[in-house]
Structure formats: C-alpha cells, structure tokens
C-alpha cells in the first residue's frame, strides 16, 4: 500500500517536473470553510503567542536569506491563498513546522546542523507543502472527535513547547500529520527542490543528519519526525525518488549557506553548551571556526567547551583556544577571565591575579565583576 502511495506521488511529481509548475492553489481566506477558518484563527493566535515568547531569532540577514531560498522553491507568481515565509526560533531542539498560512518556523539548532542550502531546501519544500496542500484542515476533518482532538493536541503542546503551541502548532510541530500526508509533503517537497535546481541527493544526507542527532539525544525520533513516517521510511522515500529518473545532481551551495547562517551556528554552539551537550556544542563551534578561522569568538567558545567539560587533557586544549582567541583579539576579556578561573582552581595564584586583572581592565562593566574582585581580594 505504501509503495502504491509513493509510486502515485512519484508519477505526479515526474509529470510536474517535466511539464513545469502545477502548485495547487489554496483558496483565499474569505472563501475558506468554517472549520478551516477556525483553524486559521487558532493558528493566528498561536503565532502571536510565539511572537511574544522571546524565542524569535532576530537577524534580518538570516531571515532574508532563508526567505530567498523558500522563494526559489515557489512559482514566480507566488502561491495564492497563503503567504509563505520563514522565521527562526532560538531553540536547541531539532524541529521545524509550518502553519496553515504558510509561515514556517525552524529551530536555530536544526538550521545550524545542516550542511548546505540544498538540505535547507529539502526541509522548506516539505514544510511549505503542508501549507499549500492544506494538510491541517485535512487532518482535522479526518478526526472522529474534533473537540477532543484539539484539546489533546493543546495538552501535548503545552507539555513540550512551553505552552507555546496550541492545537494547530502542536499538530504541525509535535505530533505531525498522517503518514500519507507526510509522504505527500516529502515527495512534493522533493519535486520543488529539483525544479529549483538543487541536488535531491542531499535529502538522504539531511535525514541521516537528523537520524544521527536523534540517536545522540537518545530520542526514538526527534520532534521533526515524531509520528511522521519513521526516518528510515522517509529515507526510503527519498531513495525511491532518486531512482525515479530525476536528475541526480544539482546545486548544493555549501559556502553561501555557511556564510549566511554562521551566526546561527555560533549561537547554537552556546545553546548546546548551556545544555551541557558538549559533543554537539563542539561540532557547532568547530563548524563556525572552519567558516571563520580568524574570528576569536570561535576559539573562545571552544575554550569554554573544553574548560567546562573538564575531561582529561581538556584544560590544555581550553588554554590553547583561549590563547588563540587573545592572539586574534587582544581585547578578548572573556578569554582572560576563563584563564583566571582555571589558574585559580590550579592554585596558580600569580597567574590568576594577572589574568583577572587583564579581564577587568578590558571589561570594566563585567556582570561578574563582584566575583572577580572577591577572588582578587582573597588572592592577596
């Protein structure tokens, strides 16, 4: 049965790929049925709540870049009935979801984990298909008990998303759609990326990244895949698509992507570090360092990762990174602070005094000044 569904989608997509765009048009809001209007209204309320949450990653350049990639996937004259756009949420959880109006939310750490623009396009193509094909209302209409369906979604959303997600957001972000609708989103999304000239092989690479991340977090499936076809099935969908006669090549845009999201990667390294996920934090920090090898911030965050992990040999590695940060930017006060803390714990009092002095000279308004002054007093 599943194979039949995949074959049906592949046939339709191949026809579209060869004949040009054929996006189904969503009806204008004014002509929506009552139940769909209700879902849109709830979605609008939920989006207002997200906007007030403080979770939105505010960076005009990043947002503009992501929207430019989304635009490449859509027909030049747009998609009627919805207003596609991308918003980044500052979160370390691997997730992305779309609301019925075409707004796609992507979590910053998921974005940072990706390797290139083609992988981003895979995700955006999948998500925008949910909006274009009106999956929310289709899912809603398939439910036997609509009231309890919405109530249970809200409870689940409150649990996993700080109460941020109401029923519509939870459907999109947490529980996911039916397998048929998810497969449809996979297949039509892949069709979009091929039409836009991206390499569809990156879809398998993207799902492999997500799979590795879920294993690392010890999740059965990350939220992005929760109740979706299991990752293996989705990879199989992609592989079937790749074998269906589509061109197995295209652009990847690795450098453009790395440059555009570099600050998201650095921010994600800090988020992962705060969560104590040292391996993920290190991977992000090294990714940032590889893209910005002359940026002292790369070495400072690496120093912090090793200092705080504090495994055998980490102290030396941390120190090397702090020293590199200082050699790149003599005003990098935070690196002196960290060296001071390390020296203090090793009872290298002379060094501790010197480093703390350097720190306070460079950061006179440091938030932790009171601690440092206390340490200096104790060292006398």
């Amino acid at each position: 049965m599943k194979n039949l569904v995949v074959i049906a989608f592949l046939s339709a997509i191949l026809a579209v790929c060869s004949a040009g765009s054929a996006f189904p048009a969503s009806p204008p809001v004014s002509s929506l049925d009552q139940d769909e209007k209700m879902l849109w209204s709830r979605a609008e309320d939920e989006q207002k709540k997200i906007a007030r949450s403080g979770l939105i990653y505010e960076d005009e350049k990043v947002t503009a870049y992501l929207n430019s990639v989304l635009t490449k996937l859509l027909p030049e004259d747009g998609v009627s009935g919805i207003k596609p756009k991308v918003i980044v949420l500052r979160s370390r959880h691997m997730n992305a979801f779309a609301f019925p109006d075409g707004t796609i939310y992507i979590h910053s750490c998921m974005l940072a984990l990706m390797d290139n623009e083609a992988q981003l396009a895979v995700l955006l193509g999948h998500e925008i298909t949910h909006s274009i094909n009106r999956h929310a209302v289709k899912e809603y209409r398939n439910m036997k008990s609509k009231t309890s369906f919405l109530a249970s979604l809200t409870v689940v959303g409150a649990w996993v998303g700080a109460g941020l997600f109401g029923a519509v957001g939870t459907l999109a972000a947490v529980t996911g759609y039916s397998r048929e609708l998810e497969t449809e989103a996979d297949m039509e999304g892949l069709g979009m990326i091929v039409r836009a000239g991206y390499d569809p092989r990156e879809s398998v690479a993207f799902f492999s990244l997500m799979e590795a991340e879920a294993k690392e977090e010890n999740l059965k499936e990350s939220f992005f895949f929760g109740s979706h076809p299991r990752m293996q099935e989705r990879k199989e969908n992609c592989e079937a698509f790749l074998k269906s006669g589509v061109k197995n090549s295209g652009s990847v845009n690795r450098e453009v992507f790395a440059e555009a999201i570099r600050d998201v990667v650095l921010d994600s390294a800090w988020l992962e570090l705060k969560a104590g996920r040292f391996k993920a934090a290190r991977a992000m920090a090294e990714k940032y360092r590889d893209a910005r090898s002359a940026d002292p911030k790369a070495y400072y965050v690496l120093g912090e990762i090793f200092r705080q992990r504090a495994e055998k040999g980490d102290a030396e590695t941390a120190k090397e990174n702090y020293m590199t940060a200082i050699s790149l930017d003599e005003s990098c006060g935070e690196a002196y602070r960290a060296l001071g803390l390390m020296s203090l714990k090793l009872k290298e009092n002379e060094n501790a005094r010197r480093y703390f002095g350097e720190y306070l000279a460079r950061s006179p308004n440091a938030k932790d000044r009171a601690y440092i002054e206390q340490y200096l007093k104790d060292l006398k």
Partner: protein
Amino acid sequence: MKKLILLAALISLAGCAPQKPWIKAEKLYTNETQGFAVELPDNWMRSGKDDFLIATRDGFPLQTIYIRRFDIRENPLKNTKKTLKRDMLPHEVAEIILDDIISTSSLTDVKTEENVPIAIGGVPGFRLVYTFKNSSGLKMKAVLCGRLKDDWLLVVRYSAPQRHYFDMDAATFEDVFRSLKVTNEQKQ
C-alpha cells in the same frame, strides 16, 4: 468486568487525593529533614511536604518562596547535562544553575539581571536575579540565592509575576532570607 473497571477507577481516584494540604505558616519553621530553620511572615501558607519548603500568601502562581537542599551526587539539575561538583566556585555553581534555567523548555526569554557573590551562613554563595516567561507566557521575576557546601546545594528562591507582584513581596523575601539558619550542615 464492570467491577474491575470500577475498582481501577477507585484506585486511580485515590491516587489523585492530596497527600497534605496547604497549612498556615508558623512564625518559626524548622525542617529537620532538610536541616534548616526560617522565620515565615504572618498570613502566609506553606506546603506540608517534608523534603522542601514552599510558601505563598495569595497562591502559588502569585508569589512563592521555595527552600530546598539538594544532594549533588543525585544530579539535581534536570535541564542541563552539566553536573555540579563539590570543588566548584560559587561563580561556577551560579552559572551552571543559570544554564539549567535557560535550558528549561517550559521557560522562555530568560534574562539575567544580577549575579553576585554573597555568603549564606558564613559559606560563600551566590545571588541571581533573573526574569523569564513561564509556560503561560507570563513574565516572571525571581531571586535565587544558593551555596554549595560539600555535596549539598542549598537553594532559596523567590518568584512572582514581574508586574506588581514581585515588588510587593521582595522585602518580605529578604526578611525571610535573612532569618534562614542551616541547623544541620551534615544533613544526610
């Protein structure tokens, strides 16, 4: 079959019954299990739990004072994978606790207003002041004072909605905090 269902329902309902209700807070509250004593304000209520103190005047969401000692060997931080170690400086403990707060998925927009050293019962500790949005999107403010001695982390926290309520009882909290005495340093 119906009898079995009824029995199961009764058992599950029994599990919902409150174990100990809120009670009127006494002037001097002593917690032998936790090894601390504190003076509580008039007209406040406290929970009857033995393993921590939680007190409020108008209700749990409106203002809360929470005092608890944690055994760091039991890894009390649930939102960060970082662990507390007994040789950590107060500075480091404060930063890890902040990391745990920031990594809590039910809290958003966490901002630190203050992080300074203090002493609690003669032991070096820390005082954090921070704001956040709770799971309902309400902006909250909290003061969290703590200290790590051997394997025991002592936490004293006051939290309330930032608008109106926080300021209303901030001075009350300071009085409570000043009255805190650790009665058993070697709590086991």
